[in-house]
Protein backbone atom coordinates (compact mmCIF):
# COMPACT_ATOMS: atom_id res chain seq x y z
CA UNK A 1 0.00 0.00 0.00
CA UNK A 2 1.63 3.25 -1.03
CA UNK A 3 1.86 5.97 1.55
CA UNK A 4 -0.09 9.04 0.73
CA UNK A 5 0.67 10.98 3.84
CA UNK A 6 2.57 14.15 3.14
CA UNK A 7 5.43 15.27 5.33
CA UNK A 8 6.23 18.90 5.82
CA UNK A 9 9.80 19.63 6.74
CA UNK A 10 10.55 22.86 8.49
CA UNK A 11 13.71 23.99 10.12
CA UNK A 12 13.92 25.40 13.59
CA UNK A 13 16.09 28.44 13.97
CA UNK A 14 19.64 27.76 13.01
CA UNK A 15 19.30 24.06 13.59
CA UNK A 16 19.10 21.63 10.81
CA UNK A 17 16.97 19.05 12.53
CA UNK A 18 13.99 18.40 10.40
CA UNK A 19 10.77 18.05 12.28
CA UNK A 20 8.24 16.17 10.28
CA UNK A 21 4.62 16.30 11.23
CA UNK A 22 2.13 13.62 10.40
CA UNK A 23 -0.38 15.32 8.29
CA UNK A 24 -3.50 13.56 7.41
CA UNK A 25 -4.13 14.74 3.93
CA UNK A 26 -7.72 15.29 2.89
CA UNK A 27 -6.74 13.52 -0.27
CA UNK A 28 -5.98 10.24 1.55
CA UNK A 29 -9.54 9.20 1.01
CA UNK A 30 -8.91 9.19 -2.72
CA UNK A 31 -6.74 6.10 -2.47
CA UNK A 32 -9.55 4.07 -0.92
CA UNK A 33 -12.05 5.61 -3.26
CA UNK A 34 -10.12 4.55 -6.30
CA UNK A 35 -9.59 1.04 -5.01
CA UNK A 36 -13.29 0.79 -4.30
CA UNK A 37 -14.34 1.87 -7.75
CA UNK A 38 -11.78 -0.46 -9.29
CA UNK A 39 -13.42 -3.33 -7.40
CA UNK A 40 -16.79 -2.20 -8.65
CA UNK A 41 -15.56 -2.30 -12.21
CA UNK A 42 -13.92 -5.67 -11.91
CA UNK A 43 -13.13 -7.98 -9.03
CA UNK A 44 -11.69 -11.45 -8.72
CA UNK A 45 -14.35 -13.12 -6.65
CA UNK A 46 -17.48 -12.33 -8.63
CA UNK A 47 -15.63 -13.30 -11.77
CA UNK A 48 -14.99 -16.74 -10.34
CA UNK A 49 -18.58 -17.42 -9.48
CA UNK A 50 -20.23 -16.47 -12.73
CA UNK A 51 -20.08 -18.47 -15.90
CA UNK A 52 -17.10 -17.96 -18.15
CA UNK A 53 -17.36 -15.67 -21.13
CA UNK A 54 -16.53 -17.11 -24.51
CA UNK A 55 -14.60 -15.31 -27.17
CA UNK A 56 -16.62 -16.62 -30.04
CA UNK A 57 -20.09 -17.96 -29.91
CA UNK A 58 -20.70 -21.70 -29.74
CA UNK A 59 -24.35 -21.54 -30.83
CA UNK A 60 -25.67 -21.90 -27.31
CA UNK A 61 -27.79 -18.95 -26.23
CA UNK A 62 -26.94 -19.62 -22.63
CA UNK A 63 -23.28 -18.78 -23.23
CA UNK A 64 -23.95 -15.18 -24.02
CA UNK A 65 -26.02 -12.47 -22.52
CA UNK A 66 -27.83 -11.27 -25.53
CA UNK A 67 -28.70 -12.99 -28.77
CA UNK A 68 -26.44 -11.59 -31.46
CA UNK A 69 -28.53 -10.58 -34.42
CA UNK A 70 -25.97 -10.99 -37.10
CA UNK A 71 -27.96 -12.24 -39.98
CA UNK A 72 -30.29 -14.87 -41.18
CA UNK A 73 -27.64 -17.52 -41.70
CA UNK A 74 -26.48 -17.47 -38.13
CA UNK A 75 -30.00 -17.67 -36.81
CA UNK A 76 -30.71 -20.62 -39.08
CA UNK A 77 -27.58 -22.38 -37.91
CA UNK A 78 -28.54 -21.78 -34.36
CA UNK A 79 -32.03 -23.11 -35.00
CA UNK A 80 -30.54 -26.24 -36.53
CA UNK A 81 -28.32 -26.60 -33.51
CA UNK A 82 -31.30 -26.37 -31.20
CA UNK A 83 -33.10 -29.07 -33.16
CA UNK A 84 -30.13 -31.41 -33.02
CA UNK A 85 -29.44 -30.83 -29.38
CA UNK A 86 -32.95 -31.03 -28.04
CA UNK A 87 -34.40 -33.40 -30.58
CA UNK A 88 -31.68 -35.99 -30.96
CA UNK A 89 -28.97 -35.63 -28.37
CA UNK A 90 -31.03 -34.90 -25.29
CA UNK A 91 -33.51 -37.80 -25.53
CA UNK A 92 -30.74 -40.28 -26.31
CA UNK A 93 -28.73 -39.10 -23.37
CA UNK A 94 -31.64 -39.18 -20.98
CA UNK A 95 -32.51 -42.72 -21.99
CA UNK A 96 -28.92 -43.82 -21.50
CA UNK A 97 -28.70 -42.15 -18.14
CA UNK A 98 -31.92 -43.65 -16.84
CA UNK A 99 -30.93 -47.11 -18.03
CA UNK A 100 -27.54 -46.74 -16.48
CA UNK A 101 -28.79 -45.66 -13.08
CA UNK A 102 -31.46 -48.33 -13.04
CA UNK A 103 -29.00 -51.10 -13.86
CA UNK A 104 -26.52 -49.76 -11.38
CA UNK A 105 -28.95 -49.66 -8.48
CA UNK A 106 -30.14 -53.21 -9.12
CA UNK A 107 -26.71 -54.72 -9.65
CA UNK A 108 -25.16 -52.90 -6.76
CA UNK A 109 -27.86 -54.05 -4.35
CA UNK A 110 -27.53 -57.63 -5.54
CA UNK A 111 -23.79 -57.60 -5.09
CA UNK A 112 -24.41 -56.36 -1.59
CA UNK A 113 -26.13 -59.64 -0.76
CA UNK A 114 -22.95 -61.62 -1.34
CA UNK A 115 -20.99 -62.61 1.74
CA UNK A 116 -18.20 -60.29 2.71
CA UNK A 117 -15.38 -61.59 0.58
CA UNK A 118 -12.95 -60.74 -2.14
CA UNK A 119 -15.54 -61.64 -4.73
CA UNK A 120 -17.90 -59.04 -3.39
CA UNK A 121 -15.22 -56.39 -3.45
CA UNK A 122 -14.17 -57.32 -6.96
CA UNK A 123 -17.71 -57.36 -8.32
CA UNK A 124 -18.55 -54.20 -6.45
CA UNK A 125 -15.78 -52.37 -8.21
CA UNK A 126 -16.88 -53.67 -11.58
CA UNK A 127 -20.45 -52.61 -10.99
CA UNK A 128 -19.37 -49.16 -9.96
CA UNK A 129 -17.19 -48.74 -12.99
CA UNK A 130 -20.03 -49.88 -15.21
CA UNK A 131 -22.34 -47.35 -13.65
CA UNK A 132 -19.90 -44.53 -14.15
CA UNK A 133 -19.13 -45.50 -17.72
CA UNK A 134 -22.83 -45.45 -18.50
CA UNK A 135 -23.09 -41.99 -17.03
CA UNK A 136 -20.12 -40.76 -18.95
CA UNK A 137 -21.56 -42.06 -22.21
CA UNK A 138 -24.88 -40.48 -21.41
CA UNK A 139 -23.21 -37.11 -21.04
CA UNK A 140 -21.05 -37.70 -24.09
CA UNK A 141 -18.04 -36.73 -22.13
CA UNK A 142 -14.69 -36.83 -23.84
CA UNK A 143 -12.13 -37.16 -21.11
CA UNK A 144 -8.39 -37.20 -21.55
CA UNK A 145 -6.42 -38.59 -18.67
CA UNK A 146 -2.86 -37.38 -18.40
CA UNK A 147 -0.08 -38.92 -16.36
CA UNK A 148 -1.95 -42.06 -15.48
CA UNK A 149 1.10 -43.36 -13.65
CA UNK A 150 0.16 -40.97 -10.86
CA UNK A 151 -3.31 -42.40 -10.46
CA UNK A 152 -4.29 -42.43 -6.78
CA UNK A 153 -3.43 -45.58 -4.87
CA UNK A 154 -5.39 -47.31 -2.15
CA UNK A 155 -5.25 -45.85 1.31
CA UNK A 156 -4.75 -42.25 0.35
CA UNK A 157 -6.74 -39.10 -0.23
CA UNK A 158 -7.43 -37.60 -3.62
CA UNK A 159 -8.13 -33.87 -3.89
CA UNK A 160 -9.45 -32.07 -6.93
CA UNK A 161 -10.86 -28.72 -7.95
CA UNK A 162 -14.63 -28.54 -8.04
CA UNK A 163 -16.73 -27.21 -10.89
CA UNK A 164 -19.80 -29.42 -10.97
CA UNK A 165 -21.08 -32.50 -9.14
CA UNK A 166 -20.27 -34.39 -12.33
CA UNK A 167 -16.58 -34.09 -11.43
CA UNK A 168 -17.16 -37.26 -9.45
CA UNK A 169 -18.28 -39.14 -12.53
CA UNK A 170 -15.39 -37.82 -14.57
CA UNK A 171 -12.86 -39.03 -12.05
CA UNK A 172 -14.58 -42.25 -11.07
CA UNK A 173 -14.64 -43.29 -14.68
CA UNK A 174 -10.99 -44.21 -14.40
CA UNK A 175 -10.82 -45.88 -11.01
CA UNK A 176 -13.02 -46.30 -8.00
CA UNK A 177 -13.05 -43.80 -5.20
CA UNK A 178 -14.77 -43.60 -1.86
CA UNK A 179 -16.95 -40.58 -1.78
CA UNK A 180 -17.62 -38.28 1.12
CA UNK A 181 -20.80 -36.34 1.44
CA UNK A 182 -24.09 -35.65 3.08
CA UNK A 183 -26.92 -38.10 3.06
CA UNK A 184 -29.62 -36.91 0.68
CA UNK A 185 -33.21 -37.85 0.25
CA UNK A 186 -35.04 -38.91 -2.87
CA UNK A 187 -33.36 -40.30 -5.94
CA UNK A 188 -29.90 -39.24 -4.85
CA UNK A 189 -30.40 -40.88 -1.49
CA UNK A 190 -31.44 -44.09 -3.19
CA UNK A 191 -28.31 -44.07 -5.30
CA UNK A 192 -26.19 -43.36 -2.24
CA UNK A 193 -27.64 -46.29 -0.35
CA UNK A 194 -27.12 -48.57 -3.33
CA UNK A 195 -23.51 -47.44 -3.63
CA UNK A 196 -22.73 -48.17 -0.03
CA UNK A 197 -23.89 -51.75 -0.35
CA UNK A 198 -21.13 -52.77 -2.68
CA UNK A 199 -18.33 -50.40 -1.81
CA UNK A 200 -17.34 -48.38 1.24
CA UNK A 201 -18.37 -44.74 1.07
CA UNK A 202 -18.58 -42.14 3.80
CA UNK A 203 -21.99 -40.55 4.01
CA UNK A 204 -22.77 -38.15 6.81
CA UNK A 205 -26.01 -37.23 8.41
CA UNK A 206 -26.66 -33.51 8.24
CA UNK A 207 -26.19 -33.10 11.97
CA UNK A 208 -22.88 -34.91 11.97
CA UNK A 209 -21.37 -32.59 9.37
CA UNK A 210 -21.15 -29.80 11.93
CA UNK A 211 -19.03 -31.95 14.20
CA UNK A 212 -15.59 -31.59 12.68
CA UNK A 213 -13.94 -34.11 14.94
CA UNK A 214 -16.38 -36.79 13.98
CA UNK A 215 -15.80 -36.09 10.32
CA UNK A 216 -12.05 -36.13 10.75
CA UNK A 217 -12.15 -39.35 12.70
CA UNK A 218 -14.15 -41.20 10.11
CA UNK A 219 -11.89 -39.99 7.34
CA UNK A 220 -8.83 -41.04 9.33
CA UNK A 221 -10.18 -44.51 9.98
CA UNK A 222 -10.96 -45.00 6.34
CA UNK A 223 -7.62 -43.70 5.13
CA UNK A 224 -5.68 -45.74 7.65
CA UNK A 225 -6.91 -48.93 6.08
CA UNK A 226 -4.50 -49.37 3.21
CA UNK A 227 -6.73 -51.71 1.29
CA UNK A 228 -9.57 -49.28 1.01
CA UNK A 229 -10.10 -47.12 -2.02
CA UNK A 230 -8.81 -43.56 -1.95
CA UNK A 231 -11.18 -40.94 -0.60
CA UNK A 232 -12.23 -38.26 -3.06
CA UNK A 233 -12.47 -34.82 -1.50
CA UNK A 234 -13.08 -31.38 -2.97
CA UNK A 235 -11.36 -29.03 -0.54
CA UNK A 236 -12.84 -25.87 -2.01
CA UNK A 237 -16.15 -26.83 -0.54
CA UNK A 238 -18.20 -25.37 -3.35
CA UNK A 239 -18.39 -25.19 -7.12
CA UNK A 240 -16.15 -22.63 -8.80
CA UNK A 241 -16.32 -21.72 -12.45
CA UNK A 242 -13.10 -23.42 -13.60
CA UNK A 243 -11.13 -20.27 -14.27
CA UNK A 244 -9.55 -20.24 -10.83
CA UNK A 245 -8.93 -22.32 -7.74
CA UNK A 246 -10.21 -20.99 -4.44
CA UNK A 247 -8.90 -21.52 -0.95
CA UNK A 248 -8.52 -25.15 0.09
CA UNK A 249 -10.04 -25.96 3.46
CA UNK A 250 -7.46 -27.49 5.71
CA UNK A 251 -9.55 -30.36 7.12
CA UNK A 252 -8.47 -33.02 4.68
CA UNK A 253 -4.83 -31.97 4.91
CA UNK A 254 -4.65 -32.51 8.63
CA UNK A 255 -5.21 -36.23 8.42
CA UNK A 256 -1.66 -36.95 7.51
CA UNK A 257 -1.77 -39.45 4.74
CA UNK A 258 -0.57 -39.13 1.18
CA UNK A 259 -2.42 -36.66 -0.99
CA UNK A 260 -2.89 -37.23 -4.71
CA UNK A 261 -3.88 -33.95 -6.36
CA UNK A 262 -5.93 -34.14 -9.52
CA UNK A 263 -6.60 -31.18 -11.79
CA UNK A 264 -9.72 -31.03 -13.95
CA UNK A 265 -10.12 -28.52 -16.74
CA UNK A 266 -13.21 -28.30 -18.91
CA UNK A 267 -13.27 -27.02 -22.45
CA UNK A 268 -16.00 -24.42 -22.40
CA UNK A 269 -16.49 -24.18 -26.10
CA UNK A 270 -18.61 -27.31 -26.04
CA UNK A 271 -20.78 -26.39 -23.13
CA UNK A 272 -20.50 -24.74 -19.75
CA UNK A 273 -20.07 -27.25 -16.99
CA UNK A 274 -20.13 -24.85 -14.04
CA UNK A 275 -22.98 -25.35 -11.60
CA UNK A 276 -24.13 -21.98 -10.32
CA UNK A 277 -26.17 -23.36 -7.45
CA UNK A 278 -27.71 -20.01 -6.64
CA UNK A 279 -29.11 -19.75 -10.14
CA UNK A 280 -30.47 -23.20 -10.84
CA UNK A 281 -30.90 -26.52 -9.12
CA UNK A 282 -29.27 -29.85 -9.82
CA UNK A 283 -31.84 -31.22 -12.24
CA UNK A 284 -31.79 -28.05 -14.31
CA UNK A 285 -28.02 -28.22 -14.31
CA UNK A 286 -28.04 -31.80 -15.58
CA UNK A 287 -30.45 -30.88 -18.32
CA UNK A 288 -28.20 -28.01 -19.37
CA UNK A 289 -25.21 -30.31 -19.60
CA UNK A 290 -27.18 -32.89 -21.51
CA UNK A 291 -28.39 -30.33 -24.00
CA UNK A 292 -24.96 -28.87 -24.66
CA UNK A 293 -22.80 -30.15 -27.44
CA UNK A 294 -20.57 -32.31 -25.30
CA UNK A 295 -18.54 -32.32 -22.12
CA UNK A 296 -14.89 -32.16 -23.01
CA UNK A 297 -12.33 -32.14 -20.26
CA UNK A 298 -8.76 -32.94 -19.36
CA UNK A 299 -7.74 -34.64 -16.16
CA UNK A 300 -4.17 -34.40 -14.93
CA UNK A 301 -2.92 -36.71 -12.24
CA UNK A 302 -0.23 -34.99 -10.24
CA UNK A 303 2.51 -36.83 -8.33
CA UNK A 304 1.64 -37.60 -4.70
CA UNK A 305 2.47 -35.09 -2.00
CA UNK A 306 3.12 -35.50 1.67
CA UNK A 307 3.18 -33.01 4.46
CA UNK A 308 6.75 -31.97 5.11
CA UNK A 309 8.53 -31.40 8.42
CA UNK A 310 7.53 -28.17 10.02
CA UNK A 311 4.74 -27.51 7.60
CA UNK A 312 1.27 -27.04 9.02
CA UNK A 313 -1.96 -28.05 7.34
CA UNK A 314 -2.68 -24.59 5.92
CA UNK A 315 0.74 -24.27 4.24
CA UNK A 316 0.47 -27.79 2.92
CA UNK A 317 -2.94 -26.98 1.46
CA UNK A 318 -1.52 -23.88 -0.20
CA UNK A 319 1.33 -25.88 -1.72
CA UNK A 320 -1.03 -28.48 -3.14
CA UNK A 321 -3.31 -25.79 -4.47
CA UNK A 322 -0.46 -23.98 -6.21
CA UNK A 323 0.68 -27.17 -7.93
CA UNK A 324 -2.84 -27.97 -9.03
CA UNK A 325 -3.51 -24.49 -10.37
CA UNK A 326 -0.22 -24.43 -12.25
CA UNK A 327 -0.92 -27.75 -13.93
CA UNK A 328 -4.41 -26.87 -15.12
CA UNK A 329 -3.62 -23.28 -16.01
CA UNK A 330 -6.05 -21.80 -13.50
CA UNK A 331 -5.65 -18.67 -11.40
CA UNK A 332 -4.60 -19.35 -7.83
CA UNK A 333 -6.82 -17.25 -5.58
CA UNK A 334 -6.73 -17.00 -1.83
CA UNK A 335 -10.40 -16.16 -1.42
CA UNK A 336 -12.61 -18.58 0.45
CA UNK A 337 -15.13 -20.46 -1.67
CA UNK A 338 -17.66 -19.89 1.07
CA UNK A 339 -17.89 -16.29 -0.11
CA UNK A 340 -20.37 -17.49 -2.67
CA UNK A 341 -22.95 -17.41 0.07
CA UNK A 342 -21.53 -15.60 3.05
CA UNK A 343 -20.15 -12.13 3.68
CA UNK A 344 -16.50 -11.29 3.97
CA UNK A 345 -15.23 -11.37 7.50
CA UNK A 346 -14.61 -8.02 9.11
CA UNK A 347 -11.02 -9.05 9.65
CA UNK A 348 -10.20 -8.07 6.07
CA UNK A 349 -11.50 -4.55 6.57
CA UNK A 350 -9.62 -4.29 9.85
CA UNK A 351 -6.45 -5.30 8.08
CA UNK A 352 -6.81 -2.39 5.66
CA UNK A 353 -7.48 -0.05 8.55
CA UNK A 354 -4.47 -1.35 10.38
CA UNK A 355 -2.16 -0.79 7.41
CA UNK A 356 -3.36 2.78 7.00
CA UNK A 357 -3.08 3.58 10.69
CA UNK A 358 0.42 2.17 10.77
CA UNK A 359 1.49 4.62 8.12
CA UNK A 360 -0.06 7.54 9.94
CA UNK A 361 1.18 6.52 13.36
CA UNK A 362 4.65 5.45 12.34
CA UNK A 363 5.25 8.98 11.24
CA UNK A 364 3.86 10.07 14.59
CA UNK A 365 6.35 7.75 16.28
CA UNK A 366 9.25 9.14 14.29
CA UNK A 367 8.21 12.60 15.29
CA UNK A 368 8.15 11.63 18.95
CA UNK A 369 11.57 10.04 18.69
CA UNK A 370 12.99 13.07 17.03
CA UNK A 371 11.50 15.22 19.74
CA UNK A 372 13.17 13.09 22.41
CA UNK A 373 16.44 13.28 20.58
CA UNK A 374 16.06 17.02 20.38
CA UNK A 375 15.45 17.28 24.10
CA UNK A 376 18.52 15.28 24.93
CA UNK A 377 20.87 17.23 22.78
CA UNK A 378 19.69 20.79 22.93
CA UNK A 379 20.85 23.01 20.20
CA UNK A 380 22.97 25.94 21.00
CA UNK A 381 22.21 29.20 19.39
Amino acid sequence: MTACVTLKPHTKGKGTIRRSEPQFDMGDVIYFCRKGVESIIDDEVTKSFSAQELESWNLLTRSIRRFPHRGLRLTLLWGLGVLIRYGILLPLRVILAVTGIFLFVILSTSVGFLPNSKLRFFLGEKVHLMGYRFCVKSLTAFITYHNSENRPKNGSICVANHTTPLDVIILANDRCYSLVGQVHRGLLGLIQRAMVKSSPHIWFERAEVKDRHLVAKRLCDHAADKTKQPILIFPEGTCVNNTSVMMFKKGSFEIGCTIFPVAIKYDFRFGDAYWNSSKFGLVHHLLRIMSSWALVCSVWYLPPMNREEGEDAVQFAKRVKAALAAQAGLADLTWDGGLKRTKVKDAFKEEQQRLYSEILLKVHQTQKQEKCFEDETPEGD
Partner: protein
Amino acid sequence: LSFLECSWRFCGRFKALWMKAALPDFKIRELTENPIGGRIIAAFFPPEKERLDFPSFVRILAHFRPIGKNRSRDRAQPEQANSRTGKLKFAFELYDQDRDGKISREELLQVLRAMLGLQVTEEQLRSIAERAIQEADLDGDGAISFDEFKKSLEKVDMEHKMNIRFLK
Protein backbone atom coordinates in the same frame (compact mmCIF):
# COMPACT_ATOMS: atom_id res chain seq x y z
CA LEU B 1 -14.38 1.35 -28.06
CA SER B 2 -17.96 2.06 -28.87
CA PHE B 3 -20.60 2.88 -26.32
CA LEU B 4 -22.25 -0.47 -26.96
CA GLU B 5 -19.11 -2.34 -26.03
CA CYS B 6 -18.83 -0.28 -22.88
CA SER B 7 -22.41 -0.91 -21.87
CA TRP B 8 -22.03 -4.61 -22.56
CA ARG B 9 -19.18 -4.89 -20.11
CA PHE B 10 -20.74 -2.69 -17.51
CA CYS B 11 -24.10 -4.40 -17.50
CA GLY B 12 -22.83 -7.22 -15.41
CA ARG B 13 -21.08 -4.97 -12.92
CA PHE B 14 -24.05 -2.74 -12.76
CA LYS B 15 -26.30 -5.54 -11.53
CA ALA B 16 -24.23 -5.85 -8.41
CA LEU B 17 -25.07 -2.30 -7.38
CA TRP B 18 -28.72 -2.43 -8.27
CA MET B 19 -30.50 -2.09 -4.97
CA LYS B 20 -29.35 0.36 -2.36
CA ALA B 21 -30.99 -1.92 0.15
CA ALA B 22 -28.28 -4.42 -0.58
CA LEU B 23 -25.75 -2.11 1.06
CA PRO B 24 -25.24 -4.02 4.29
CA ASP B 25 -24.91 -7.21 2.34
CA PHE B 26 -22.35 -6.30 -0.32
CA LYS B 27 -22.26 -8.55 -3.30
CA ILE B 28 -18.82 -7.38 -4.29
CA ARG B 29 -16.49 -9.00 -1.80
CA GLU B 30 -13.49 -6.79 -2.37
CA LEU B 31 -15.63 -3.76 -1.69
CA THR B 32 -16.53 -5.13 1.72
CA GLU B 33 -12.93 -4.98 2.83
CA ASN B 34 -12.64 -1.36 1.75
CA PRO B 35 -13.07 0.85 4.83
CA ILE B 36 -15.20 3.38 2.96
CA GLY B 37 -16.99 0.84 0.77
CA GLY B 38 -20.40 1.97 2.01
CA ARG B 39 -19.75 5.58 1.12
CA ILE B 40 -18.54 4.70 -2.35
CA ILE B 41 -21.72 2.77 -3.07
CA ALA B 42 -23.80 5.61 -1.64
CA ALA B 43 -21.99 8.04 -3.94
CA PHE B 44 -23.44 6.25 -6.94
CA PHE B 45 -27.00 6.85 -5.85
CA PRO B 46 -28.37 10.36 -6.09
CA PRO B 47 -29.98 11.46 -2.81
CA GLU B 48 -33.38 9.99 -2.01
CA LYS B 49 -33.23 7.48 -4.83
CA GLU B 50 -33.34 3.75 -4.20
CA ARG B 51 -32.52 2.53 -7.68
CA LEU B 52 -29.67 3.33 -9.97
CA ASP B 53 -30.11 3.58 -13.70
CA PHE B 54 -27.38 2.89 -16.20
CA PRO B 55 -26.71 6.46 -17.38
CA SER B 56 -26.19 7.64 -13.79
CA PHE B 57 -23.83 4.73 -13.21
CA VAL B 58 -21.75 5.69 -16.20
CA ARG B 59 -21.83 9.34 -15.20
CA ILE B 60 -20.23 8.53 -11.86
CA LEU B 61 -17.62 6.30 -13.43
CA ALA B 62 -16.79 9.13 -15.83
CA HIS B 63 -15.17 10.93 -12.88
CA PHE B 64 -12.38 8.39 -13.09
CA ARG B 65 -11.50 8.79 -16.69
CA PRO B 66 -8.12 10.28 -17.42
CA ILE B 67 -8.11 14.02 -17.95
CA GLY B 68 -7.97 14.60 -21.69
CA LYS B 69 -5.58 16.90 -23.47
CA ASN B 70 -6.80 20.48 -23.73
CA ARG B 71 -8.81 20.95 -26.84
CA SER B 72 -10.28 24.25 -27.80
CA ARG B 73 -13.83 22.98 -27.78
CA ASP B 74 -13.47 21.72 -24.21
CA ARG B 75 -13.22 25.21 -22.91
CA ALA B 76 -16.62 25.98 -24.28
CA GLN B 77 -18.21 23.06 -22.41
CA PRO B 78 -19.22 23.22 -18.77
CA GLU B 79 -17.07 21.48 -16.21
CA GLN B 80 -16.71 17.89 -17.24
CA ALA B 81 -16.87 15.05 -14.78
CA ASN B 82 -13.31 13.99 -15.38
CA SER B 83 -11.82 17.47 -15.11
CA ARG B 84 -9.77 18.26 -12.05
CA THR B 85 -12.68 20.11 -10.49
CA GLY B 86 -15.04 17.25 -11.26
CA LYS B 87 -12.77 14.76 -9.54
CA LEU B 88 -12.30 17.02 -6.56
CA LYS B 89 -16.05 17.46 -6.29
CA PHE B 90 -16.49 13.69 -6.15
CA ALA B 91 -13.92 13.36 -3.40
CA PHE B 92 -15.50 16.28 -1.54
CA GLU B 93 -18.88 14.58 -1.61
CA LEU B 94 -17.41 11.47 -0.05
CA TYR B 95 -16.86 13.56 3.05
CA ASP B 96 -19.87 15.82 2.81
CA GLN B 97 -22.67 13.30 3.24
CA ASP B 98 -25.41 15.81 4.06
CA ARG B 99 -24.57 17.82 0.95
CA ASP B 100 -24.56 21.18 2.71
CA GLY B 101 -21.44 22.26 0.82
CA LYS B 102 -19.18 22.10 3.86
CA ILE B 103 -17.21 19.36 5.57
CA SER B 104 -17.98 19.74 9.25
CA ARG B 105 -15.76 18.43 12.03
CA GLU B 106 -18.21 15.61 12.63
CA GLU B 107 -18.21 14.53 8.99
CA LEU B 108 -14.41 14.50 8.93
CA LEU B 109 -14.34 12.46 12.12
CA GLN B 110 -16.71 9.95 10.57
CA VAL B 111 -14.48 9.38 7.57
CA LEU B 112 -11.39 9.12 9.75
CA ARG B 113 -13.11 6.64 11.98
CA ALA B 114 -14.08 4.57 8.95
CA MET B 115 -10.56 4.55 7.57
CA LEU B 116 -8.81 3.83 10.85
CA GLY B 117 -11.37 1.79 12.73
CA LEU B 118 -10.28 0.67 16.15
CA GLN B 119 -6.60 1.01 15.39
CA VAL B 120 -6.29 4.48 16.95
CA THR B 121 -7.71 5.95 20.13
CA GLU B 122 -10.43 8.56 20.23
CA GLU B 123 -7.98 11.30 21.25
CA GLN B 124 -5.60 10.53 18.41
CA LEU B 125 -8.53 10.62 16.03
CA ARG B 126 -9.69 13.98 17.32
CA SER B 127 -6.22 15.45 17.20
CA ILE B 128 -5.71 14.35 13.60
CA ALA B 129 -9.08 15.83 12.66
CA GLU B 130 -8.34 19.08 14.51
CA ARG B 131 -5.03 19.47 12.78
CA ALA B 132 -6.53 18.78 9.38
CA ILE B 133 -9.24 21.38 9.91
CA GLN B 134 -6.79 23.97 11.19
CA GLU B 135 -4.61 23.45 8.14
CA ALA B 136 -7.39 23.68 5.62
CA ASP B 137 -9.87 26.09 7.16
CA LEU B 138 -8.92 29.50 5.88
CA ASP B 139 -11.95 31.54 6.80
CA GLY B 140 -12.11 30.20 10.33
CA ASP B 141 -15.67 28.93 10.35
CA GLY B 142 -14.72 25.50 11.68
CA ALA B 143 -15.74 23.70 8.51
CA ILE B 144 -14.12 23.12 5.16
CA SER B 145 -15.85 24.48 2.10
CA PHE B 146 -15.26 23.20 -1.41
CA ASP B 147 -12.85 26.03 -2.25
CA GLU B 148 -10.79 25.40 0.88
CA PHE B 149 -10.77 21.70 0.01
CA LYS B 150 -9.54 22.50 -3.48
CA LYS B 151 -6.82 24.71 -2.06
CA SER B 152 -5.57 22.09 0.36
CA LEU B 153 -5.24 19.60 -2.45
CA GLU B 154 -3.71 21.93 -5.00
CA LYS B 155 -0.40 20.06 -4.91
CA VAL B 156 -1.99 16.65 -5.22
CA ASP B 157 -1.72 15.04 -8.60
CA MET B 158 -5.38 14.23 -9.20
CA GLU B 159 -4.71 13.31 -12.76
CA HIS B 160 -2.93 10.18 -11.66
CA LYS B 161 -4.48 9.44 -8.31
CA MET B 162 -8.06 9.36 -9.42
CA ASN B 163 -7.56 7.60 -12.67
CA ILE B 164 -8.75 4.20 -13.74
CA ARG B 165 -8.09 2.70 -17.10
CA PHE B 166 -11.21 0.82 -18.00
CA LEU B 167 -11.55 -1.54 -20.90
CA LYS B 168 -8.14 -2.66 -21.99
